[in-house]
């Protein structure tokens, strides 16, 4: 936990991150989440002009004709505000691909939600941004695939992306909105973490997210193309820690660290069904963005049941709430209320059992193999990107990756 989240005597702080694996974390989490969740990730669409191979969306992308109606999203915002949710992340895909984003933003602000627009920004014009600001949009986050334009455009497969993103970033600060620069970090740009920090300062960003790729969805499929070495990872973390101190009061740097090289698992989502919920473009309500990879879970849809009812009673939310579901070594572990056994989806992907300890934990019998796998992949030349697009979605659904067998 960073220094900030320990809080001081009079004012504690909780992260309500859009990064799916971060969720809600910090010293005041218990206080805030005792009554209701705090954060909502609204994935408005899976349509996206970019094709980044590290996308956290599921391989099976939702079609346009399955997307929720404007009325349904407006109702979701009202229900979210009424049940006590405080922040909404409007994300995707690319949320501005929805022509009714304006109505959804208005509904969010009228419902008392603090709204975050998570955008690739390549298709956003100034007039539209001004309109969104008038509707009380609170915060804009723009992803930059790299600081070097050519490499960024190779990673996102979108020519001319960087110039457009820089324009939108300037408009955001000119309109007096706070800006977050999102830096998705992997082996093709990890050498540029320092320059990302310079870019964020230059753009007048309030916040920088150094988001080391987490290997779910498309990123899992592309892991051998993306995973950096252990040494590169450690260097980038140390750099961020030094820069945080230097830029205190100028730039907040949040860091999502890669867990394949960790010894302790991340407290994924800040605990399953504790402070965070995620709604897919088609209205399925998930405890986290990757939960659909766990085939034993049953998800409810906002078109069928009230959001609060789903939060309290859905099988998917109750499956891994608290600590009762845990097996050993989690069950008797002193850290079980701190990291909640890590990530269920990672346990599923690597060990084929979602109730196992996250293999990122050194106590997992799969841990040694996972680290060895990561090191081996990072030592080889990167595999070519499998770009995130509908055609590759069809191909990828056929193959997939097999789970590991446990260590002897």
């Amino acid at each position: 936990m960073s220094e900030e989240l320990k809080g001081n005597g009079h004012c504690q702080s909780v992260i309500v991150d859009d990064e799916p694996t971060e969720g809600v974390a910090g010293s005041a989490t218990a206080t805030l989440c005792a009554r209701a969740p705090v954060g909502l990730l609204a994935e408005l669409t899976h349509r996206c002009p970019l094709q980044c191979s590290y996308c956290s969306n599921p391989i099976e992308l939702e079609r346009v004709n399955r997307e929720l109606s404007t009325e349904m999203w407006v109702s979701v915002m009202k229900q979210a505000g009424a049940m006590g949710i405080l922040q909404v992340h409007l994300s995707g895909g690319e949320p501005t691909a929805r022509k009714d984003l304006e109505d959804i933003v208005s509904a969010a602000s009228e419902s008392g939600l603090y709204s975050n627009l998570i955008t690739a920004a390549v298709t956003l014009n100034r007039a539209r941004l001004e309109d969104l600001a008038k509707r009380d949009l609170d915060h804009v986050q723009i992803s930059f695939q790299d600081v070097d334009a050519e490499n960024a455009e190779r990673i996102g497969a979108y020519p001319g992306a960087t110039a457009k993103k820089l324009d939108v970033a300037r408009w955001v600060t000119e309109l007096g909105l706070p800006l977050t620069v999102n830096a998705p970090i992997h082996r093709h740009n990890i050498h540029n973490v320092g320059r990302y920090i310079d870019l964020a300062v230059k753009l007048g960003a309030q916040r920088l997210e150094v988001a080391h790729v987490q290997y779910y969805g498309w990123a899992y499929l592309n892991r051998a193309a993306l995973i950096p070495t252990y040494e590169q990872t450690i260097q980038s973390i140390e750099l961020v820690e030094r820069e945080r101190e230097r830029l205190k009061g100028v730039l907040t740097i949040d860091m999502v660290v890669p867990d394949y090289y960790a010894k302790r698992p991340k407290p994924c989502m800040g605990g399953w069904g504790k402070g965070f919920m995620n709604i897919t473009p088609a209205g399925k309500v998930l405890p986290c963005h990757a939960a659909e990879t766990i085939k034993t879970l049953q998800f409810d849809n906002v078109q069928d049941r009230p959001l609060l009812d789903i939060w309290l009673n859905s099988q998917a939310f109750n499956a891994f709430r608290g600590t009762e579901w845990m097996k050993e070594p989690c069950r008797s572990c002193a850290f079980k209320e701190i990291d909640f056994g890590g990530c269920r989806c990672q346990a599923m992907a690597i060990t084929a059992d979602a109730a196992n300890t996250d293999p990122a934990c050194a106590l997992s019998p799969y841990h040694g193999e996972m680290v060895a796998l990561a090191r081996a992949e990072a030592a080889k030349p990167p595999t070519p990107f499998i770009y995130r697009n509908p055609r590759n979605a069809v191909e990828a659904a056929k193959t997939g990756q097999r789970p590991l067998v446990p260590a002897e």
Partner: protein
Amino acid sequence: MNEAASPERLVVDRETRPHLPTYLKLRFDAGRDRWVLLAPERVLTPDQTAVAVLKLCDGKRTVQEIVEALAKDYSAPADVIRADVIDLLQGLADKGYIKG
């Protein structure tokens, strides 16, 4: 005024006239029966003292004036309050949540 971009760290002292940038929302959360301060991807949970201070951060009052107002309201010595207020505001300024 562009409050989102601030190139230098604010060092809070007696003469600072602190205010919350427009993108920070201090709200009473009726369901939880407490004040919350909403910021980009953060929720802060100010206690009663912090709320009392934040409500006085209007960009017109100096820190010294805020301290005097609080000393009167809470019948406490100004010196003790001042150290606490500066500590609180500096902590918030270092996260970009207070401008001067």
